[in-house]
């Protein structure tokens, strides 16, 4: 589904990602871990097409297409979803209007008829139940006045509604209490399908107790320095990142 080859990304002239290689197949859950500042969020933003992140080298193939040629909105319409670490507030724009526009833009892209208001509301109710979010969340403006936990839950709700092929969750667990964490993890697990894939970016192993990844990658100073199965996450939790730092430091 997603093949990243030697991806290098700079922000304001400073190279953050220094050659990433990663392959994600349908049905897989990948976790990307690493200490702060290692480039985890940069990878997420670059894949989603944020133009503040300049791609200086490398290739990314997504669903048989050159991902880097696609506009951010087309990446989304092709089924890529980014769960933001810091979801922005858009005052005055209702969640309903926002999501309905999003869904119908995607349908238009696929030459499908727009969803009627009734069908859309039905779908929204259904997904709200699935991910267990409060119904008043959708009657408010996009993220406006939401608590940190509400914003994250809202990201998961949007993911459920948009039914992406590839979800990239950027530190969705940060700042969540244990209940919210469980809701987020349950949402992700319930949406897991053989044709879909998820990349979970996280600092802590905590989330991975609920979402069991097929692969764990450790990102450090812009490179994937270690990959393994879910056991790696446990190891990291025990030994901390210093172990990785020392190891890769000696290699460098």
């Amino acid at each position, binding site marked *: 589904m997603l093949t990243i080859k030697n991806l290098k990304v700079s922000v304001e002239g400073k190279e953050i990602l220094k050659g990433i290689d990663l392959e994600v197949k349908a049905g897989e859950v990948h976790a990307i871990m690493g200490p702060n500042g290692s480039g985890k969020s940069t990878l997420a933003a670059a894949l989603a097409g944020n133009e503040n992140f300049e791609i200086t080298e490398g290739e990314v193939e997504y669903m048989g297409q050159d991902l880097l040629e696609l506009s*951010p*909105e087309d990446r*989304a319409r092709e089924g890529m979803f*980014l769960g933001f670490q810091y979801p922005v507030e858009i*005052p005055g724009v209702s969640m309903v*209007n926002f999501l309905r*526009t*999003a869904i119908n833009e995607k349908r238009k892209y696929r030459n499908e008829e727009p969803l009627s208001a009734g069908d859309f509301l039905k779908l929204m109710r259904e997904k709200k139940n699935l991910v267990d979010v409060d119904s008043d969340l959708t009657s408010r403006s996009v993220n406006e006045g939401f608590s940190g936990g509400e914003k994250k839950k809202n990201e998961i709700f949007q993911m459920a509604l948009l039914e992406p092929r590839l979800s990239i969750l950027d530190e969705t667990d940060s700042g969540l209490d244990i209940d919210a964490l469980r809701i987020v993890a349950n949402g992700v697990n319930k949406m897991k399908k053989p044709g879909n894939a998820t990349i979970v970016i996280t600092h802590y192993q905590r989330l991975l107790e609920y979402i069991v990844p097929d692969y764990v990658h450790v990102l450090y100073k812009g490179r994937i320095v270690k990959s393994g199965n879910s056991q790696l996450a446990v190891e990291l939790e025990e030994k901390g990142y210093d172990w990785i730092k020392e190891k890769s430091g000696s290699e460098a």
Partner: protein
Amino acid sequence: MASEQDKIISEVTGNEYKFGFHSNVETETLPRGLNEETVRAISKKKNEPEWLTEFRVKAYRHWLTMKMPKWAHLKIPEIDYNDIIYYAAPKRKASYESLDEVDPELLDTFNKLGIPLEEQKQLTGVAVDAVMDSISVKTTFSETLADLGIIFCSFSDAVKNYPDLIKKYMGSVVPYTDNYFAALNSAVFSDGSFCYIPKGVHCPMELSTYFRINAANTGQFERTLIVAEDDSYVSYLEGCTAPQRDENQLHAAIVEIVAMENTEVKYSTVQNWYPGDKNGKGGIYNFVTKRGICKGDNSKISWTQVETGSAITWKYPSCILKGDNSVGEFYSVAVTNNHQQADTGTKMTHIGKNTKSIVVSKGISAGRSDNSYRGLVKILKGAGNARNFSQCDSLLLGDRCGAHTFPYLEVDNDTAIVEHEATTSKIGEDQIFYCNQRGIDTENAIGLIVNGYAKEVLNKLPMEFAVEAQKLLQITLEGSVG
């Protein structure tokens, strides 16, 4: 509503001003230039009674003693008042017996604008008075309204048929001495709309005037007068467009509202005069005086405006709150893009006791435009317990535009409570990217964000207008980011 929104989005594809066409309607004009002769000639063309001719001449003479106001935050090029045609009328018979007699080209014009004049085709329940250049073309639903005693007709017809009402109220809210453009309008106004709601009548449909400047080198000077007798209600809409032309055209209108006891008058405007091209060439100068008086107790006047057009806008719809417990409201969205300039706002003058006013102004600036809010809240000595709340928000797109707020306060009664809030914000790249990531492209994202920002005001518009206004906001701002 929801499917309407989809329609809007799908309709919004072109960047250009949509109403910029010109119709080949045969026009009768007076020669260019302004002098007492012109003023008298207009009056004569319209077979006006002598008192009206005198009113015009007095206004003209007063205008000569005045200077164009310079206090607004606007750069207004020198206007040569002798280079303007002051009277242009579609050639026609004295009056139409039926729609069949109206020039088909003219009907076509209004159809293109989405204003069908054929009553049987009208499902929206909006009565329309269509004004092309200087002349009211057709007023629909007059008969239906007449059954209720409501008068809704062109200003010229009103002068003929209801001279006493006109004589009594014309200039009673905006006297010709009021300001430079009011004086000019009073001298040369050509037509407009008149609306009279009798005592106890709740007007069952929206009344609407649609203004269209068609002829070249022509100024448009219309007046609207609305009189609402005790215990009545009316909602009035105004829309405007003009062809795309390279030269600037002047529009100087007057709107007067008289609200008696226990009345409510809502006046909504969607102003979409041609704003000029991307480089600031051409466009309408929109210098308008709008004022209403809450004459009786417990009356309410509410102005709602969505201003997207015009090269320069100078306009302050105001309320004089004379009756006790009367209420004035001003809800405004003003958008400027490219080289447009707007200096707009309101004046709330509190005279009666327990009078209240609410001002909500939402400015949106893009391109190299300049957008100013200017508002005066004046509370007189006798206005015990007066309340005002003003909120002035500015939204900036890009970094080459300007937003300014000039609030003025004059309070002579210490029981008054006056509040003013102001914010300035920018559409953030992160907001747009967030929308992009959900599959919404940048144009639509801006449309969403801007309409969300202006929602409080758009919600005050009657349904049909709200849809048009949303559409306009998005069209106006197309291409302004990225």
